[in-house]
């Protein structure tokens, strides 16, 4: 088995684990069937990838995007409104939503990425709230607080996507998550990712090597914004109605995403899957405590950060290291570079 995979020259073992995980994620909801499980798994995937995107910014370049829900909002309304007014398909809407969010990301990034971290956080927060406010007030176009109804995905290659069958939407998001994760993973493993690490370690030490730090931050930020927008667009067509509330596209949503990234473990991307499993799972178990959701998020954030400062991913890695050093073999693998 291992010798077979050696010939594939996978970047590392983690990639294999991820493939196995994705296969599991693809199989379980369709095997279980029904409507409930696919819907829960859709939530898990959505929060996982948003957490990973948050982490792509925070964990790799220390860019704190408190306005991430605003980019989700830009993607959601960008797609929903283009479908309604320009009659594009929701599939094209995914791209339009991504681009709408990327443009806002580009403008925000150009304005703030040369400043210190706290200003980026505050500006993104401001952008998010401004966007939400604008959407609430442009009632003629967006229907404001009464909510904008959005159609579902149209048939693709003869395959229908009825909302009554959540499993079909689950496959859409699974495909989107795989593509997005692959892109993020490829970036993080590339020279660009190496520069991200260098910048995180020492910005000045990086810039005296002729590396334009702000350009790398901008690239990171715009890529993340684009994908957040794509998932915003997916969300719009999945959920069917958009309301510009704080729970949907404001600080509360940001806190959920941020919690998943922190609980999962920063700087790993995949850690967010653990974060999403934990938090979405807990939310499903404690369904009756809806209003307490944020409190629960806050408490679990504090608890987990105190017990495992580097999140579930960090705890798992430590466990793995302890295990492999006890086994004697393989301990050297973890310290070995792959250049």
């Amino acid at each position, binding site marked *: 088995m291992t010798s077979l995979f050696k010939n594939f020259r996978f970047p590392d073992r983690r990639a294999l684990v991820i493939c196995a995980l994705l296969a599991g994620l693809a199989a379980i909801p369709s095997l279980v069937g029904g409507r409930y499980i696919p819907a829960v798994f859709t939530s898990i995937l959505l929060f996982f990838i948003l957490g990973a995107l948050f982490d792509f910014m925070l964990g790799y370049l220390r860019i704190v995007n408190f306005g991430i829900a605003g980019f989700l909002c830009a993607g959601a309304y960008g797609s929903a409104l283009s479908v309604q007014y320009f009659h594009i398909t929701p599939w094209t809407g995914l791209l339009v939503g991504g681009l709408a969010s990327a443009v806002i990301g580009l403008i925000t990034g150009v304005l703030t990425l040369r400043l210190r971290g706290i200003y980026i956080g505050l500006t993104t927060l401001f952008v998010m709230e401004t966007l939400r406010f604008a959407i609430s007030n442009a009632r003629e176009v967006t229907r404001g607080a009464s909510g904008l109804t959005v159609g579902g995905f149209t048939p693709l290659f003869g395959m229908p996507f009825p909302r009554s069958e959540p499993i079909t939407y689950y496959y859409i998001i699974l495909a989107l998550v795989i593509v997005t994760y692959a892109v993020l993973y490829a970036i993080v493993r590339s020279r660009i990712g190496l520069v991200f690490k260098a910048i995180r370690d020492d910005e000045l030490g990086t810039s005296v090597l*002729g590396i334009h730090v702000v350009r790398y931050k901008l690239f990171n930020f715009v890529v993340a914004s684009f994908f957040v927008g794509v998932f915003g667009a997916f969300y719009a067509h999945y959920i069917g109605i958009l309301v510009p509330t704080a729970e949907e596209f404001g600080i509360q949503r940001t806190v959920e995403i941020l919690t998943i990234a922190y609980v999962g473990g920063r700087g790993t991307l995949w850690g967010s899957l653990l974060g999403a499993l934990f938090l979405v799972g807990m939310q499903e178990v404690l369904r009756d405590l809806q209003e307490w959701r944020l409190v629960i998020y806050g408490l679990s954030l504090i608890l987990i950060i105190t017990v495992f400062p580097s999140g579930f991913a960090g705890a798992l890695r430590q466990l793995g290291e302890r295990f492999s050093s006890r086994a004697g073999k393989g301990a050297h693998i973890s310290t070995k570079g792959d250049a």
Partner: protein
Amino acid sequence: MTALLTVDHVNKSFQGVRTLTDVTFDLEPGRILGLIGPNGAGKTTMFNVISGIYSADSGRVLLDGRDITNRSPARIAGYGVGRTFQVARTFNDMTVAENLRVALVNAGLSGREERQRIAAMLDRVGLTGVRDLMVSALPDGQKKLLEAARAMMTSPRLLILDEPFGGVSAEVIDLLISIIRGLVREGVGCLVISHDIVSLPRLCEEVLVLVEGKVMTRGAISEIRNDARIVDAYLGA
């Protein structure tokens, strides 16, 4: 011959306190100039102005006749200025080899060329044995050596080194001196701050003495050693 580096009447103050006053000097390619002076004389500040980390209040810095005053550090590095810091700024979260790899990202090399260049540099500075070690595990002396190697990886035309011998073992100092001399023979210009009065004369013949932000004198180390004022100012610190 036009100078590689020209520093022309540079002034710099911090909160009204003059740190550099009318500093003027130049450096030709293929030459090494030592920069000495007591603590707080403004040596590091001078380096920071040259490499774009601080902006000069007035005056100019030219590289090969091109005005680089107050350009960003990345730009200036791109023009061919490589530098190290008094306290090494290595990437401690990475391996030794990866540190060197970062310096090559703008070089547009293929993966194979990149690996060859890294291996060659590791070999040259004697860090091959620790290539896959995390830099955080290295002693400070090796971090300084690695930082110098990383600066050299960018193939600079001007190399400016802030206390390259600090905390570095005797053998590594020998190695560093021979590597720098080799680069200088190829035409690189080099500016070196050092408090190490044993090692510095082995590296360069000429020094610039900076005292209280002003150029006090420039000359052969052998002469300057006999100058009572400088012995007072420099060694008395």
